């Protein structure tokens, strides 16, 4: 049976040492009391519980700019006003929440660097706590010296700076970035389809909707062609069908032309209203059903060229989600795109805290693993040796 090492310990505040039997280290009494308090595991537990509880609240209350009327309407008068008072609508940047995080970081720092004599066993805990401080330091460095902004480019457009919230002018890049093309690639076989049933008990074909493509139906030479596709079928008073690319898919419909031995016919088939016209078979007994399904996006690609300040090409690159572009001190991420113009929207960041954060990320699981698995082994060895 394995006995957890931790239950044998009850680390009390700094005890008198052989070097200083009185326990005094030259610091005033109140300083020692504060350090003792900050080092206390009970204090750390209380802080962690408060931070966890506050974080939980932030996920239940919508985060964003405070609108008193909307908050009161949604949460009631008391809670709506409390949200504004405590900044619960922007909880994670509220002064008291950041204060709790700072206090926890201070507690970890005092626990890490104060008091105890060096020992191999305590090193494991020190690594764990120090790694948390590295992550916090990296985050602070990013907050102080980092840059976050956006860069929107249309096809063919070149920019030498990007927009940062609160800045009066674009922040210069030190080079130029030109958008050569922005592409959205889709998975094959996804997207709209037409179900074509040949007769009451006949075969059903599933045909991808491609405007202009003629598809044989394998029945007496019958063919189907998709003539038109609209996202929201509406007619004006003159019987003209209204269509625009930015429509919402409220009433998707396709117009098809069926040709065969019986002649030619055109009809509209509606995804939301399959019972209307298109569902009833024509004289040839063909049933149509339109299944509207936006195609699955495979990738968003910004094809760019990096140029120096004189306009000379440095390199070409493709920015994808999960594949950002690093140029100089900046990193460009595929963030979004303009649905009307098909221009790209890139997020631009400079984060000097990366090395610290990454160091913390590497050390933290190492420290935890050593504390859980190496420390008990050392303790058992120590007891065995004694």
């Amino acid at each position, binding site marked *: *049976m*394995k006995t957890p090492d*931790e239950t044998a310990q009850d680390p009390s505040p700094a005890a008198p040492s052989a070097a200083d039997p009185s326990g005094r280290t030259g610091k005033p009494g109140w300083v020692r009391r504060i350090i003792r308090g900050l080092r206390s*595991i009970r204090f750390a537990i209380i802080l962690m519980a408060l931070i*966890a509880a506050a974080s939980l609240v932030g*996920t239940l209350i919508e985060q964003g700019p405070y609108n008193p009327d909307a908050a009161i309407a949604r949460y009631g008068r008391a809670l709506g006003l409390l949200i504004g008072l405590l900044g619960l609508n922007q909880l994670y940047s509220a002064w008291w929440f950041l204060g709790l995080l700072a206090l926890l970081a201070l507690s970890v720092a005092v626990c890490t660097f104060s008091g105890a004599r060096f020992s191999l066993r305590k090193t494991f805990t020190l690594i764990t706590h120090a790694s948390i401080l590295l992550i916090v330091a990296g985050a602070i460095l990013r907050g102080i010296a980092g840059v976050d902004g956006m860069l929107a480019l249309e096809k063919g457009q070149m920019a030498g700076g990007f927009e940062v919230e609160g800045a009066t002018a674009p922040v210069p890049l030190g080079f130029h970035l030109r958008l050569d093309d922005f592409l959205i690639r889709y*998975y094959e076989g996804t997207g709209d389809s037409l179900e074509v049933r040949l007769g009451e008990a006949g075969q059903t074909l599933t045909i991808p909707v491609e405007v202009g493509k003629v598809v044989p139906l394998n029945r007496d030479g019958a063919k189907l062609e998709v003539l038109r596709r609209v996202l929201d079928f509406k007619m004006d008073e003159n019987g003209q069908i209204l269509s625009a690319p930015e429509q919402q898919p409220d009433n998707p419909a396709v117009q098809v032309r069926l040709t065969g031995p019986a002649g030619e016919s055109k009809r509209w088939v509606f995804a939301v209203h399959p019972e209307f016209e298109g569902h009833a078979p024509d004289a040839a007994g063909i049933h149509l059903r339109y299944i509207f399904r936006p195609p699955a*996006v495979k990738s968003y690609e910004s094809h760019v060229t990096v140029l120096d300040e004189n306009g000379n090409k440095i390199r070409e690159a493709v920015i994808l989600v999960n594949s950002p572009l690093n140029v100089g001190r900046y990193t460009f991420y595929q*963030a979004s795109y303009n649905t009307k113009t098909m221009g790209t929207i890139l997020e631009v960041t400079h984060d000097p805290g*990366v090395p610290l954060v990454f160091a913390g990320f590497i050390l933290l699981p190492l420290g935890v693993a050593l504390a859980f698995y190496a420390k008990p082994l050392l303790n058992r060895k120590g007891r065995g040796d004694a």
Partner: protein
Amino acid sequence: MHEQLWTISFVIFLAAVLLNAAQVILALVLKKAGRTDSPGWLRWMRGAGNVLIGLGMAGLTATIAAEWRALGYPPFSNVPESMLWMAWGFCAVYFVSRIFVGFTGMELGASVGAVGILAVSSLFPQGSHPLMPALQSKWLVFHVFTCMVSYGAFFAAFCTAILWLAIWRKRESQKVLDVLAYQLMAFGFLALTVGIISGSVWAKQAWGRYWGWDPKETWSLITWFVYGIYLHFRMAGAQFGVKRENLPLLNAIFAIAGFVVVAFTYFGVSYLLVSLHSYATS
């Protein structure tokens, strides 16, 4: 193909439940009859129960491999797919506990747990979708795998705590269960730490920031804090006035409450809160 393999795995785990339940009942009957030693046929039943759990785990491995092959990408993009990994992680944690750490006698709990995970996964909408651009990363496998293994370990700790409360509370075995629950939560905490870190690195690569207080990120941090509090509490329970003899009870409560938080992080965030991580409902 992977649906058939899933069904086979589920049936195997069900058979393990029946066999392990039978051997537990028979062991109790023998004990009541005053028999102190374990007859050979009972040990054989226990071994067969473990073999069935191992076969079920092999079935899960085959299911995952078959689905991966069919989809052309790792099956991680929705709840049923990720729960396959959770069930696999749960079984892995069980066998590690049994073989390398020496905890035995948990066959029934392990088989019931595996059946439970698979049964719950079947309640969610099935069917896979092509991987959206945000999920096309080498971090997908590592991040989701470590998180699912941690959830499996926390679930195992939860089952152990339930067992401690319901069945073994008055027995000497409660000490073993207490230690087992601690070991499981410690391992789960380590795996979750790696999972959160890998998620942060991935978020940096995809979205340009390590941490955005997204509900999924926040709840995973809450989970990490809950277990972090538990691990510190084991050292400092006395400072809160908790008597040493009551610590195992409090630890069992932590294991149960912690898994409730895990369950909300896993399911509640995906279905009740809007998050960048709401891939599960797509």
